[in-house]
């Protein structure tokens, strides 16, 4: 056997570094690139973005419902942006180098896993920077966590997973693209898809709702909104809207009949609720007398003859002289009456029937109506109702919800990493 042939046979027995050892080789290479290839710049960039976004959301997030949703969306955008730009060029910019190294024995799986580890470190650092900077500019984070004892830790896990999933998605785009120009052309479409189909901010047509399942932004938005306890926050913008409308004029003309018809429409739940309300309490006889005496028309009324020149005044004087009013002053007179009963009584009276076609003109401002009804009461009522209408079970701050969103985001990480691996396995099919 010749020496060369023997060498070839020996070569068959030699073992080279396996996948695990190769991961370490590439991880070391990537950490060097962090220093030499200016990958570190993503950290100050993350701080800058967090600062800008933090200044916008600091007076809204965790304070009211709509501000919290908007803040959650802004945070998701920050995470997706950071994640995408971490890795969008990392594979395509060195595609030729990868092909050469693959030819020399590099395992694609080792290369991708080393990227996964390196990018995880980068995303973690960005998440910490983002949280710190937003807290610094005034975003008021709660203290108590739900899954972990500290809210910041819960929130950090969510932000990390959103950033990391986006990072892996970009890694896949980078593996698909043949060069950096192609990758940067695809990137805006991916970002727009993620933001439009997040399913939280824009109302989507029914047929596109399935697409939200393919976005990282969807579970991302849900997990942040859930952690921020969005459903328990008041819906504040409706109150501020009402305040802004104070000077708005309102008015119009309507007939008495129209008013009565509306108030008698029992099939309307709102009217039914109103009709069921009690109209005042029962009075004592003394209270009734005081009310009557304070009325301007009472003076004229008591002079009116009731029977054969006997006036109401005479009757009251006789009762007082007999000590009846003093004796029965505490006696309850009449019962409670509901608005519905009062309306029905009025509607049934012939006088009111005669007035049905009479027009009533009203000209006032929203402010005056608010003053009559009590502005704070109206605002509180509207906030409560708007919050109830905006309630979203996906945003319930429960451990089950949050862990399920974390799992979804983690699945995205694994799926995109696998896709990157499979895509890059075809690198030997590249056209030269």
């Amino acid at each position, binding site marked *: *056997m*010749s*020496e*060369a*042939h023997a*060498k*070839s*046979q020996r*070569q*068959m027995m*030699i*073992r*080279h*570094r*396996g996948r695990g*050892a*190769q991961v370490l*080789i590439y991880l*070391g*290479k990537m950490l*060097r*690139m962090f220093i*030499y*290839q200016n990958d570190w710049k993503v950290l100050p960039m993350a701080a800058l973005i967090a600062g800008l976004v933090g200044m916008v959301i600091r007076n809204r997030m965790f304070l009211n419902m709509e501000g919290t949703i908007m803040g959650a969306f802004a945070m998701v955008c920050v995470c997706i942006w950071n994640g995408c730009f971490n890795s969008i060029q990392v594979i395509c910019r*060195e595609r*030729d*180098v990868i*092909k*050469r*190294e693959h*030819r*020399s*024995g*590099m395992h694609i799986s080792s290369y991708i896993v080393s990227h996964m580890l390196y990018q995880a470190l980068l995303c973690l650092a960005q998440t910490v920077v983002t949280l710190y900077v937003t807290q610094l500019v005034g975003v008021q984070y709660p203290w108590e966590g739900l899954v972990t004892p500290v809210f910041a830790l819960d929130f950090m896990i969510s932000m990390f997973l959103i950033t990391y999933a986006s990072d892996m998605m970009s890694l896949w785009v980078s593996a698909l693209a043949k060069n950096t120009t192609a990758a940067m052309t695809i990137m805006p479409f991916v970002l727009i898809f993620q933001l439009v189909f997040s399913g939280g901010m824009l109302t989507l*047509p029914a*047929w596109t709702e399935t697409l939200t399942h393919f976005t990282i932004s969807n579970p991302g938005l849900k997990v942040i909104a859930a952690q921020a306890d969005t459903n328990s926050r008041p819906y504040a913008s409706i109150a501020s809207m009402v305040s802004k409308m104070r000077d708005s004029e309102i008015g119009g003309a309507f007939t008495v009949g129209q008013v009565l018809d509306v108030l008698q429409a029992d099939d309307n739940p709102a009217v039914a609720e109103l009709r069921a309300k009690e109209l005042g309490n029962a009075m004592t006889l003394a209270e009734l007398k005081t009310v009557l005496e304070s009325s301007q028309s009472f003076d004229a009324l008591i002079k009116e003859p009731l029977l054969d020149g006997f006036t109401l005044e005479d009757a009251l004087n006789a009762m007082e002289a007999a000590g009846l009013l003093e004796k029965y002053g505490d006696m309850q007179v009449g019962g409670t009456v509901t608005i519905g009963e009062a309306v029905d009584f009025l509607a049934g009276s012939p006088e009111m029937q005669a007035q049905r076609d009479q027009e009533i003109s009203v000209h006032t401002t929203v402010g005056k109506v608010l003053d009559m009804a009590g502005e704070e009461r109206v605002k509180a009522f509207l906030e409560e109702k708007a919050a109830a209408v905006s309630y979203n079970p996906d945003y319930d701050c429960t451990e089950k919800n949050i862990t399920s969103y974390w799992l979804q985001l983690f699945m995205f990480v694994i799926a995109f990493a696998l896709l990157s691996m499979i895509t890059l396995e075809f690198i*030997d099919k590249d056209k*030269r």
Partner: protein
Amino acid sequence: MLVVRILLTIFARGTSVSDIVISALFMAGIWRIFEKSGIKGWWALIPGAREYQLACCAGRESEGPVYSLASASSIALQVLSLLLSFNSTDVSTIEIMIAIGSMALALVSFIYSVRVYSGLIDVYGVRKRWLWLWVLPYTSFIPALLWGFGKKFQPAWKVEDIRTEMARLATHGSASVMSEGLTVNLTERSATEFFKKKVLLRDIHMAIPQGHMVLLLGGSGAGKTTYLNAINGYEKAKAEVLLNGTDLYKHYKKMQYEVGFVPQSEMMRGKDTVLNTLMDAARLRLPKEVSSEQRKARVNEVMEIFGLLPVKNNLVEKLSGGQKKRLSISMEFISNPSLFILDEPDSGLDGVMARELFEQLRKIADAGKIVIVITHTPDRVIDLFDDVIVLAKDSARTGRLAYYGSIEEARRFFGRDKMEQIVKSVNRKEEGGDGLADEFVMKYAKEVA
């Protein structure tokens, strides 16, 4: 029923008889153009396939797949839109999406039609202004009819019948297996593009002894890099490649460290240092059992051989062209491979530096390795080579072996002194060559038979 439904809808939508007549005239003209180019005329009746064949007639085969797909998809979307709107007058979201898609495809179709018809104009040797008639709506039938039926319009060349040419130029043979050296018996290396098989290389058989430095010559597109990729096992062909008696294809995972392939461009990370680049290459290529000290020693040894010690801490991007080449070679040389393949290692180097580099390669060959090198300036270093491989593109556009043997014998075989003259002799006429590829391929096949 579907066809009837579509036709009914077309008429309901206001498609006039004149549209149908114009389309028929266009197809008739294209039918004749295809026949003039040696293609079956009935392809003109099949939308999608028609565009691909037209691209082939225009010598723009690479544009064909996109042009064909865009046209076929555009038609498919139109039919879909017609079907959707058949029972409804409302514009649905899907119809809007289809309309947007159709617009995008129409634009792609238009751009590619300009490219293809420009090529067709070149093939027919007519004025560029004909392009307007080809691409404007409702006028394309005019040039189609005139070119198709006019006797004065003739293509400069026909789309070859590749199968006939391949059969005419078929050769057979095999190289006997060497226990020390490289034995290549390549029957075929093909690629499929747009459902069409293209044979890139065919019938290449040779046995290269150990210690030989071999020059690989051939014009552009002759398949030199394809051949190198096939023999190093990375892009497998229908072939048997044995290195020192061991099948490279069967045992690729183990044998890949026995082959060093230095690509044409540097393909290294510019932001890493020379030392780190070589250390990583050593970790990747050297056996697991090699200790850290042995690895460092090997890296230092290689840096010394290739003169990289003074720049070992420099970033790769800061190196000169020559230093980058040497570093690229060092990365492969680190595992001391038996077969060393270099794709244009002297590109971008001046004569002196190139000479130095080839002298180093000669030393590697003298140490018992096989060194195969592609270079476009072979004559300045020809004295350093033992053998030459000449690849040529035959008339079926397939890379073939026109010669393998010693340098002196090559001069006699081709009747030319200079290697560059040999390349010129086998290059196609339209590339400025002598167009003798088929002749030399057949001559060599007869000599070795």
